[in-house]
């Protein structure tokens, strides 16, 4: 049994690398983009906030899998072509930025307007006010929701199989079909659980770091 599991490790390992790549790239790009989305959404200029609202609605209102398919198979019809991996990252980033954007917006809007007024009477610029006063407080407020999204993202990465990219779950499925065994799938499940456990611990640490004030 142990030796069977041992033979599975290389392919599961390869799948894990792809999963982690999708995961990391999505986070690295979607969090900053999400901050921009939240700012555009709050902006007083009607057309901009309306367009952003539309974007959020489309991204949250359609399945992520459909978005991946659309970007990889659909966009070439109008002459825009991406390789599989790029298409997947674009779809994931756009999708997650919409969710993060809404979470950040909620965080920003829950900050007391007295904070803006204090910054204003001190003469801080809008940029300074946002980066020094609003953003740090917003991050503390939204951390639990972000942790939730991050854990969802770990599992959403399994959707990339739709364009033929081999990731963790796909590696497990292939082995499972080949060997007529459930063991590979159980193994994959354990790997997902471990990943989730790691990110839960990481987020608990971050939350603790932010608990220096109330």
């Amino acid at each position, binding site marked *: 049994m142990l030796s069977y599991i041992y033979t599975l490790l290389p392919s599961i390992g390869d799948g894990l690398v792809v999963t982690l790549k999708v995961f990391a790239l999505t986070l690295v790009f979607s969090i900053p983009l999400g901050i921009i989305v939240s700012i555009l959404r709050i902006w007083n200029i009607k057309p901009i906030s309306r367009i952003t609202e539309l974007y959020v609605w489309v991204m949250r209102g359609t399945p992520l899998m459909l978005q991946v398919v659309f970007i990889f198979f659909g966009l070439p019809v109008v002459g825009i072509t991406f390789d599989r991996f790029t298409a997947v990252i674009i779809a994931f980033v756009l999708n997650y930025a919409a969710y993060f954007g809404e979470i950040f917006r909620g965080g920003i809007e829950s900050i007391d307007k*007295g904070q803006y007024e204090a910054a204003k009477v001190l*003469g801080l610029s809008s940029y300074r006010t946002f980066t020094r006063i609003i953003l740090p407080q917003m991050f503390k407020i939204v951390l639990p929701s972000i942790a939730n999204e991050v854990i969802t993202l770990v599992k959403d990465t399994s959707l990339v199989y739709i364009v033929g990219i081999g990731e963790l779950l796909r590696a497990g499925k292939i082995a499972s079909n080949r060997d007529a065994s459930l063991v590979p799938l159980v193994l994959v499940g354990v790997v997902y659980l471990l990943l989730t456990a790691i990110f839960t611990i990481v987020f608990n640490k971050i939350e603790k770091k932010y608990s220096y*004030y109330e």
Partner: protein
Amino acid sequence: MNKVINMMLKVNKLSKSFERKRILEDISLQLEAGEVLVIIGPSGGGKTTLLRCINGLEKSDNGTIIIDNIYLCRDHNNKSIYASPKEMKSIRQKIGMVFQNYNLFPHMSVVENIIEAPINVLGLSKDDAINRAYSLLKNVGLEDKKDSYPFQLSGGQKQRVAIARALCLNPKILCLDEPTSALDPELREGIANIIGKLADKGMGILIITHDMDFAKRVATRVISMKEGRIVKEAQKEDFFSEFEDNRVRRFMIL
């Protein structure tokens, strides 16, 4: 008119409405260096809005506000024309504000709260800003709390940090919104002392409150407001000797 030199604040015929409701009507007042002007009156009387106009958080509809000889807004054809953003920046440095609920930055330590503006507005080095913060904290008796966070402070301590922060840009005027609303009697005396010292140094102090005892304690001049208008203005002694007058008293109890 030699006095103009010492004039810290001049408000002339200021009016403001919110959705056609008149909040301020034809307000004129002035504040000289070293003076403690207390504006009293029932809530809803327009005191807070007046203060918010003076510190630039609200814009008046018409009238003029001059802060240390610079126009914050100027009446032109019955409309307040406001200073450019650049002028606004220098006006903001002349006026310090202590909010009723202090609005300290909760994620920053006491000293960080105070150095933020000197570093970013005046371009001070961090060391210079910290030295300035220490001397301000010393003046309000809170040196030992420099590394605390606002949630670790009592209401009175928070207020003194807010005062130190409001003074961090060396303003000419200090505004305080209901400074005694969250303080017990001993602490009122402490804050009155701090205010007195600042006025002695030549700062113009503007306080809005409905705390008559406190007004009596700190004011050099008193203005009372009701329904957006100034109904009475007098030096403190005159104001409070007439205070026994029934009409004034009835209004104050309201």
